[in-house]
């Protein structure tokens, strides 16, 4: 079997590059705790209104005893509810969302607040340091959910923590 010496060097180099990526990503996940939503938690999407957590009265922003925030939302064709939420900047957020119908996606541009929303499951995202900048941002549905998909969005307003 013949392998060119230069090619052999390149195979080692290419392998070292790939392994470096793997090591960095595993380090970020394990040491820094950066994970995508992976909570494997089921719920009956057809009866969210009967569940305590996702009942209509309980949607929105809840302040927790430790000062952090819990945001509970529902995705349904074609909107996220509540349609406008307001949260302070630099405050940890535990974000939970479920769908009543089909697949949806959820994304606030420029942040790690993003998840797929899958019928039968709850999606959870933890923003350990909260939002960094103030202002009003759109929250887009970024997964095709039907012919009105592009109309599906809502807003988050991030206020100064002091106020």
């Amino acid at each position, binding site marked *: 079997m*013949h392998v060119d010496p230069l090619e052999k060097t390149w195979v080692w180099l290419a392998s070292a590059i790939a392994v470096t990526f793997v090591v960095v990503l595993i380090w970020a996940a394990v040491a820094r705790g950066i994970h995508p939503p992976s909570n494997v938690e089921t719920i009956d999407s*057809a009866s969210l209104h009967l569940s305590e957590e996702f009942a209509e009265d309980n949607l929105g922003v809840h302040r927790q005893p430790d000062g952090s925030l819990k945001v509970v939302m529902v995705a349904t064709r074609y909107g996220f509810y509540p349609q406008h939420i307001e949260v302070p900047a630099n405050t940890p957020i535990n974000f939970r969302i479920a769908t009543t119908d089909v697949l949806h996606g959820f994304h606030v541009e420029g942040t*790690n607040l993003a998840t797929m929303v*899958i*019928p039968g499951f709850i999606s959870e995202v933890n923003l350990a340091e909260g939002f960094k900048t103030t202002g009003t941002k*759109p929250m887009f549905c970024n*997964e095709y959910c039907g012919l009105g*998909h*592009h109309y599906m969005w809502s807003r988050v307003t991030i206020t100064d923590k002091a106020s």
Partner: protein
Amino acid sequence: MSDATKPSGLALAHMWIAFLLFAVAALLGLYQVLERAELIPVWDLGYYSSVTSHGAIMGFVLTTLFISGFGYYTAATSLKMEVPMKGVAWLGWILMVGGSVLAAVFMLTGQAAVLFTFYPPLTAHVGFYIGATLLVVGSWLWVLVMIVMMGQWKKANPGQVVPLAMFGTAINALLWFWTSLGVAIEVLTQIIPLALGLVDTIDVGLARTLFSWTLHPIVYFWLLPAYITLYTIVPKAAGGRLISDEMARIAFIMLVVFGLPIGFHHLYMDPFQAEGWKILHMVGTMLVAIPTMITGFTVIGSLEIAGRLRGGKGLFGWISKVDWSQPVVLAAGFAMLMLTIGGFGGLINASYSLNVVVHNTQWVTGHFHLIFGGTVVIMYMGAAYYIWPSVTGKELASLGRARTQLWLWFIGMCTLTLPWHALGLQGQPRRTAFSPYATEFVQSWWTAEYLMVLGGAILVLSAVLFVFNLAIGGGPAASREVEYAEAVHQPVSLPNSLNGFTLWNWIIAISMIVAFGYPVAQFWMMPTYDPVMWGF
């Protein structure tokens, strides 16, 4: 070799259907960018039906039919034997074409706007799924013919080295069989029963897990014919030799073995698979960059050999000496450029912790158009230009017009996809008919949106010119001889592992059980609440 061993009829029948439907899908792409940029009135059903058709035709029909036709061609010409089981091969063609037409009827009449990724619990007309199933079943007959053909040749030539072009084609057939099992199980056991009303609900987590099984390795199924062309045709056409035959085989094997058990990078943002499984699939995803980097080295190195054999001197002087007048060589140059950019983008998408920023944004659309249109399709075009004279018996009417077409494709693809990357980083979601979001940052999207329309228009021009170049006769009579590139050191014998697939089949079977066993089984181990079917 006599003309009788030429698979001209089979190869042409597959490729013509592939390329005609490709032109239709390219036109649909132009309609989509016009609507997305709000230059024509918004029509929701039209837009999403078009997205479904564009994706399904490009991703399933163009690829499967081209790869089958190209496979019959490379198998017959590299093994120098006739394609066996012609009846089975033609039955496969009938099933693939019939299935594609059936699915197209429902997509184009607005009865299947569920996108080519199916997205249950959205449910289309059952005819759409049956058409897609027939396409896959037909392609399995091609797989069968390829595997039988390689077996017959090895039996007749014991101890001989299987030619690299056939080794690549046969391992791609094997890859496709493994790849298609995921979506086949999803469609046959979950989606068709739901669409027929035999069951009331569908486990979406399971369906998406099975689809992810198919969704990543299908990319390597598309890509391997491009790589086969780069390794076995381009070095010769450029006037040189392949650096290493064995390394090419190792790269093909790595693509197949690493490429199969890694679908969960499509599920990073999905809540129904746990962290550890996603990290496991991420490791494989990163490893599959290795054979791609090897390919980059080998192909560019082979081009350098060609340039130096033709008198090129100095560190970069060889580049201008490569015979770029050959369309397949020019296509290879463009493909390497776009694969490099698209590949780096892919590493970002595959990054477990970075994916969140670009997931389902227009960035992803830009990424896969660079890989698919910019690497896969442009090499299909280059390969078609190269093999057309030997299957039709006539030279191309104009090499210059073929080069013009490839230049247009390259320019159009860059004009389309680079702005898409920018839009994605600015938060624009993909798969939206237009952007009715009343916020100021939509305003920052417009320059990129108009560039996208320009890119789409150039691409359609190129697609139509491509079909025209193949259809127009008029060239002088061509030799039907086919020559594949020789390696600098042509192998005289190889270990079984580089000349057959038994070992690799076992490794794949074990790695698929490890990667998908528990993640699939978990849906029976926990109480799941399955939704009913929904219209779109």
